[in-house]
């Protein structure tokens, strides 16, 4: 998507405050209090906190739906307050929880909103809108002519994202964009959006009240507390490893050790080589190899190296070909993108606590075990906060 990539801007809050209640004197409670944040171009910065903490107010000050009482917001170093209002807004993508799609316009018309305001030609708008629908996973042929009332919640959110991307804005503001859909759809939308962002590399301000979403989506996370102050600003790993205050520690939750597992992926581990044997090959050879190893199981695969199941080497005959009937397909499958949290969970749920790592084609890449995950925690990549807290439900027993 070369037309959508590579445009991003820095966003800097410089001592920004917002007070309501007529005069902006110091006595009135602040919705946002002396906020200073610097967000590098092309990153997702999540503003997270309990309701009423000023995170949405902060977001809306960027496109000036709310004007700050004091302070400056700099976009690529330029003060937003000095820019013409509609011109500023047309250059910032805006996605909100209830989507705010125009009910009287079709999907393709909704997506073309900002290009139309910018005066693009009809043909160009149409082409761009259909391109974007494809990008967010909606078949233009099927969805273009529909009205928002004919879409599911998840589809509406996709259209909302496509609409915000239409004029290729360097900055996107997303206010609980996945808050109104069920957890399964939300997770899928999150994953898809992260994949999209890898290509788009927009600067994104993302508001949520869900700490798990913040940790998952954010390159940087600003934790807000009541009173419109930022309690901590850092990477998800920093937040989980060393919460700056009791409030942050409580907000990220007592299971933050487990949450940190969600920040690492199987790709970060050095995988065990899998003792594979191709179906049809000599059973005797596989038996000898299996019995010689400490782990006396052999992984049967098809000729394309896709796993068929485990075979206990001790049960193998001395000769003859390996057949699929011998294999016991019980292991959980993971891939290199699976988080260690999900991998651990799969392993704990399974009879065989060995996970098979496969690539896109389903071919075996290696094995992952609970031991390996525990080992990585001990290496200190993940461990400190977890060891201090010893959260309930954590895999305290490293034995298999």
């Amino acid at each position, binding site marked *: 998507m070369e037309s959508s990539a590579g445009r991003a801007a820095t966003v800097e809050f410089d001592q920004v405050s917002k007070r309501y209640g007529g005069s902006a004197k110091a006595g009135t409670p602040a919705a946002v209090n002396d906020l200073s944040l610097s967000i590098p171009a092309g990153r997702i910065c999540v503003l997270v906190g309990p309701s009423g903490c000023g995170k949405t107010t902060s977001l809306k000050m960027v496109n000036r739906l709310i004007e700050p009482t004091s302070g400056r917001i700099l976009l690529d170093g330029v003060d937003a307050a000095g820019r013409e209002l*509609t011109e500023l807004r047309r250059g910032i993508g805006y996605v909100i929880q209830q989507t705010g799609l125009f009910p009287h316009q079709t999907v393709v018309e909704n997506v073309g909103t900002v290009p139309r305001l910018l005066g693009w030609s009809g043909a160009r708008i149409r082409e761009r809108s259909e391109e974007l629908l494809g990008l967010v996973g909606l078949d233009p042929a099927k969805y273009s002519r529909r009205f928002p009332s004919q879409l599911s919640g998840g589809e509406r959110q996709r259209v909302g994202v496509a609409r915000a991307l239409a004029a290729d804005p360097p900055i996107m503001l997303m206010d609980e964009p996945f808050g109104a859909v069920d957890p399964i759809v939300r997770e899928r939308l999150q994953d898809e959006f992260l994949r999209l962002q890898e290509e788009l590399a927009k600067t994104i301000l993302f508001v949520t009240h869900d700490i798990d979403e913040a940790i998952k989506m954010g390159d940087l996370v600003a934790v807000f507390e009541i009173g419109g102050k930022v309690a901590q600003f850092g990477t998800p790993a920093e937040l989980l490893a060393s919460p700056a205050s009791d409030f942050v520690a409580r907000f990220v939750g007592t299971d933050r050790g487990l949450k940190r597992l969600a920040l690492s992926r199987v790709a970060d581990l050095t995988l065990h080589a899998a003792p594979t044997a191709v179906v049809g090959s000599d059973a005797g050879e596989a038996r000898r190899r299996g019995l010689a190893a400490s782990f006396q199981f052999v992984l049967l695969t098809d000729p394309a190296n896709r796993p068929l199941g485990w075979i206990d080497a001790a049960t193998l005959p001395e000769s003859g070909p390996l057949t699929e009937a011998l294999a016991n397909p019980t292991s959980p499958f993971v891939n290199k993108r699976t988080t260690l949290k999900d991998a651990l969970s799969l392993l704990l749920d399974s009879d065989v606590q060995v996970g098979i790592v496969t690539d896109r084609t389903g071919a075996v890449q290696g094995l992952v075990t609970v031991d390996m995950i525990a080992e990585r925690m001990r290496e200190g990549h993940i461990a400190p906060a977890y060891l201090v807290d010893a959260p309930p439900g954590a895999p305290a027993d490293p034995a298999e």
Partner: protein
Amino acid sequence: MLPGQQLIDFSWIGDHLGQIAERIGQHLELTILPVAIGFLIALVLSIWAVRQPIVYGPITAVTGVLYTIPSLAAFAVLIPITGLSLVSALIPLVSYTLLILVRSIVAGFRGVAPEVLEAAEGMGYTRTQRLIRVEFPLAVPMMIAGLRLATVTAIGLATVASIIGGDTFGGLGQLITEGLQTFFPTKYLLGAALSVVLAVSADVLFVQIERWITPWARAPGSAG
């Protein structure tokens, strides 16, 4: 009704089709003009009321008072000023539409979801662009509901305008008045029946218009 006379004299109807058509035409004029003028006035008042909510109370109070003035009294007041003219007939008829139309148009604008307005503002619509391209189209169903009611009401009220309009623009009311004055039931029954037919037709017409211009409002529910 005179002794020995039939309730409805079909041969008279057959002989006077031209005159009847002319009365229907006049009646349509007495309906369409006040509703159209009333709609324009009500639209301006409504946009004012939506932008400055403080004026909505006074606007509904004034249009509410206008709505309660009996039409005969209004004509009596107006004839010395504007004479036996179309204007004298239109002023009361227009003023009766205002309350209905202002209420429904304002309800239409106010019914636009706040997140839709916020999204429009956040994406860089100017206030006027938002009004024309977002708020107005979304208020259309309520506007049409108001127009339906105002039109049906106007068709009924227009029959009274024959007091002023007489032969020149009296409409179906003139048929009724003449029928009563000459004890000729065919005329007044026909006048009454035709105004009912007009009202029902207008009602059906507006339902069709709404379907036609707001396809999004009747789009079947979620696709899953």
